[in-house]
C-alpha cells in the first residue's frame, strides 16, 4: 500500500529520512541516549487516541519532558475508539487500543506491524502477551487472548499468527482482571458469585456496561454462575448461545433489574458514588475514583474467576520516516517503566512489570503486585489516599488475580449477529 499523508510536509520528511534512519539504527536500541536527530524530533507531534483509562495528560507531559516531542491525547469511549481505528486512519499516529479491538480492525490495514527487534524491552514483556502463558503451568483462558491476535506474519501482514514471529500488531502495555464492583456499605453482606448481578435483591440497583464485546462476557459469567448453561467456549458462542445469554438479560431488564447501563467509566463512577447502583460491571480506575472520594467500594473477587483484557499501542500505517522512529522511541519509553509504575498505582498491571518496579516504592509494589498488606498509606498517582496501613488489595496478588482469569474480552465468529442482538437488548 503506497498511501501517504501530506499533512506533515513531504519535503521535510524525505529530506530527513536518510539522515534519520542511519542515526536510528544506533539510537533506538540504546534507550534514552542522546540521538543525533534529537533536534528534529522536537518538532514531531504524535497524535494518540484511546480509551480514558490510559490516555492521561500526565503521560503527555512526561513525554515532552523525557523525549522532547509532543504527544496529543484524545480519550474516547471503547466503541468510538474501535470506530476511529477502523474508519479514520489518517486521524491518528498511535492507537492505544485493546486486543479485541485489534482483532476487529487489523484486517482493515490501518495499522502497521511492529518490528520486535526495535523494542528494547521485548524480552521482558509478560508471557501472557507472547506465549499466552502466565506461568509455564497456566492454561489459556477462553476468548480473544492477547497472544492470539498479537503477532502477524511480517511487515505487511494482515493475518494473525500464533507464534512469536517478530512482528507485533500491538505492543502490549497494560492489562488487568475485571470483576464486579460493589458498594459494601449499601449491600451489607458478602458477595462471592457473578450471579448476584441478577439477584432480585438488587432490583433497580444493578448496572452492566453497554459495550458489546465486554458486556457479553460479563453476561456469560453471570449465566454460568446462575447454573443456566455452561459454555463450551464463552469466547466464541454459537447463535443459540448468544440468544440464550441475551434472552436471560433482556428478561431481567424488563423486570427492572437495571438502574442504567454505562458506556464510559466516569459514568460508572457517578452511578456508584451517587448510590444509584450498588453492584455493577466496573473497571479498576473507576473503583479508584470512587474510593478517592471517600466512598467504600470493593472490586469484588468472585468464585468463578475474572474476565480479563489487555491493551497495547499500535502504529498507524500512514506513519513513516522520523515520525515512525519517534513512535518507536515513544513505545520504548512507554515500556521503560515510568508509565508502567503510574498505571500500576491505578490498579492495572504493566505488560513489563520488571521495569515498572523501579518506578514504585517497595510498599507500593508489595501492595499492588504482591498482594501484601500496605505498610503505609497507598496513594493514587494523583495523590489521593486509596488504602491505609494494613489493608490488602481486593483479590490479592498478581498471580492470584491473573491466575484466576477464565475469559478475555472477545470478538466472536458470530460477532455480527451478537452485535445486532446486543443492539436489540439495549433497545428492548
Amino acid at each position, binding site marked *: 500500500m503506497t498511501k501517504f499523508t501530506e499533512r506533515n510536509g513531504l519535503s521535510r520528511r524525505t529530506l530527513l529520512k536518510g539522515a534519520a534512519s542511519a542515526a536510528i539504527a544506533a539510537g533506538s536500541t540504546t534507550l534514552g541516549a542522546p540521538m543525533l536527530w534529537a533536534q528534529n524530533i522536537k518538532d514531531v507531534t504524535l497524535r494518540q487516541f484511546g480509551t480514558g483509562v490510559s490516555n492521561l495528560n500526565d503521560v503527555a507531559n512526561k513525554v515532552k519532558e523525557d523525549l522532547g516531542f509532543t504527544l496529543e491525547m484524545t480519550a474516547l469511549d471503547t466503541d468510538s475508539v*474501535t470506530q476511529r481505528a477502523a474508519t479514520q486512519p489518517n486521524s491518528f499516529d498511535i492507537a492505544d487500543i485493546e486486543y479485541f479491538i485489534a482483532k476487529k480492525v487489523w484486517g482493515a490495514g490501518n495499522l502497521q506491524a511492529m518490528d520486535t527487534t526495535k523494542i528494547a524491552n521485548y524480552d521482558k514483556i509478560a508471557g501472557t502477551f507472547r506465549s499466552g502463558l502466565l506461568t509455564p503451568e497456566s492454561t489459556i483462558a477462553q476468548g480473544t487472548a492477547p497472544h492470539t491476535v498479537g503477532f502477524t506474519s511480517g511487515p505487511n501482514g494482515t493475518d494473525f499468527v500464533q507464534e512469536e514471529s517478530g512482528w507485533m500488531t500491538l505492543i502490549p502495555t497494560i492489562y488487568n482482571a475485571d470483576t464486579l464492583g460493589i458498594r459494601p456499605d449499601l449491600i451489607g453482606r458478602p458477595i462471592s458469585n457473578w450471579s448476584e448481578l441478577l439477584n432480585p435483591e438488587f432490583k*433497580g440497583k444493578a448496572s452492566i456496561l453497554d459495550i458489546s464485546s465486554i458486556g457479553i462476557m460479563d453476561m456469560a459469567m453471570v449465566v454460568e454462575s446462575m447454573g443456566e448453561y455452561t459454555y463450551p467456549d464463552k469466547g466464541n458462542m454459537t447463535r443459540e448461545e448468544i440468544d440464550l445469554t441475551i434472552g436471560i438479560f433482556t428478561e431481567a431488564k424488563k423486570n427492572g433489574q437495571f438502574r442504567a447501563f454505562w458506556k464510559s467509566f466516569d459514568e460508572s463512577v457517578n452511578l456508584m458514588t451517587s448510590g*444509584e447502583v450498588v453492584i455493577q460491571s466496573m473497571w479498576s480506575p473507576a473503583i479508584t475514583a470512587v474510593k478517592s472520594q471517600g466512598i467504600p467500594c470493593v472490586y469484588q473477587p468472585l468464585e468463578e474467576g475474572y474476565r480479563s483484557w489487555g491493551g497495547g499501542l499500535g502504529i498507524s500505517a500512514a506513519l513513516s520516516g522520523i515520525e515512525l522512529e519517534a513512535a518507536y522511541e515513544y513505545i520504548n519509553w512507554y515500556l521503560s517503566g515510568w508509565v508502567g509504575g503510574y498505571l500500576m498505582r491505578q490498579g492495572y498491571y504493566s505488560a513489563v512489570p520488571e521495569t515498572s518496579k523501579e518506578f514504585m516504592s517497595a510498599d507500593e509494589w508489595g501492595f499492588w503486585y504482591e498482594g501484601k498488606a500496605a505498610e503505609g498509606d497507598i496513594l493514587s498517582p494523583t495523590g489521593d489516599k486509596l488504602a491505609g496501613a494494613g489493608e490488602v488489595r481486593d483479590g490479592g496478588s498478581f498471580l492470584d488475580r491473573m491466575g484466576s482469569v477464565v475469559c478475555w474480552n472477545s470478538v466472536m465468529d458470530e460477532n*455480527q449477529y451478537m452485535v*445486532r442482538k446486543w443492539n*436489540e437488548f439495549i*433497545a*428492548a
Partner: protein
Amino acid sequence: MKLRNNPAISSLLMVSPLAAILLIFLVLPIVLIVIVSFWRATEFSIVPAFEFDNYEFLFGSSVTYTVFFNTFKYALITWACTLLIGFTVAYYLAFHIRTLTWQIALFLLCTIPFWTSNIIRMISWIPFLGRKGIANSTLMSWGAIDVPIEWLLFSDFAVILAFVHLYTLFMVVPIFNTMMRIDKSLIEAARDAGANGAQILWNVIIPLTKPGIMIGTIFVVTLVMGDFITVRFMSGSQSANVGRLISNDIALLQYPSASATAIVLLLTVLITIGTLLRFVDIRKEL
C-alpha cells in the same frame, strides 16, 4: 445583454447557487445513505452489494416496532406539553404584556437557558432527579414520601421532562411571532360583537396562530424524533428511540444497517410532516 432579456435564464442563474448547495449538502448525502443501506457490513469494512438484508433484519425484528412506537410516543407527549406551555407563554407575552420593551425583555429572558449547551442543560437534571437528588430529598424532608421515588430518573418520565425543557422555546418563538402579527382590532371587533375571552381565544386567536403552532410543531417533532443523546442519558441507556438504534449501529460499525434505519426514519418523519402540512398551508398563511 441577451441574458438580461431572457427571464428564464436569469432566474435559473439566480436559483442555481442555492440549488447547488442543496444538491451537494443535502441530496447527495441522502442518496449516499440510500446506496449504503443496501450494502453489506463485515467487522471492519462495508462491502458494496445490493441486498435487502438490512431491511429484512430491521422489519423482521419486533424491537424495531417497539422502538418506532417509543419514538412516536416521545414525540407526541413532548409535543403536547411544549404546545401547552409554549402557547401559554407566548399568549402571555403577546397579549398581557403591554409595552414592546417588556415584551422583548421577557422574551430574551426565555432564551437565557440557551446560552449553555443542550447537553449541560440536560445532564443537570441527573443530580436533581436522582435517588438522593434534590427533588427526592426535598419531598422526603417535607414528609410527602418515605422512600425515594425511583422513576424520577432513568425513566421515560425523565426523558420527556428533558425534552420539554430543551424544546419548549422552539414552540414559544414561532407562536409568539404569529401572535404579534394578529391585528389587535380583530380582537376588539370580536369583543364588540359580544364574544367572551374563551370564544375570542378559540375562534380568533387560535385559528390565526395556526401557522406558528405548525412551525413549532415541525421543530419539536423533528427534533424529538431525531434525538438520541437525551434518550441515552436520561433513560440511563435503558430506553431507546430510533436515533439510538442508529447511533448504536454506528458505534458498532454497522453502517449499512444504520443507513437502512435512517432511511426508514427519514421516510417516517417526512410522512408525519406531510400529514401535518395538510392541516395548514404555511406558505399561504405566512
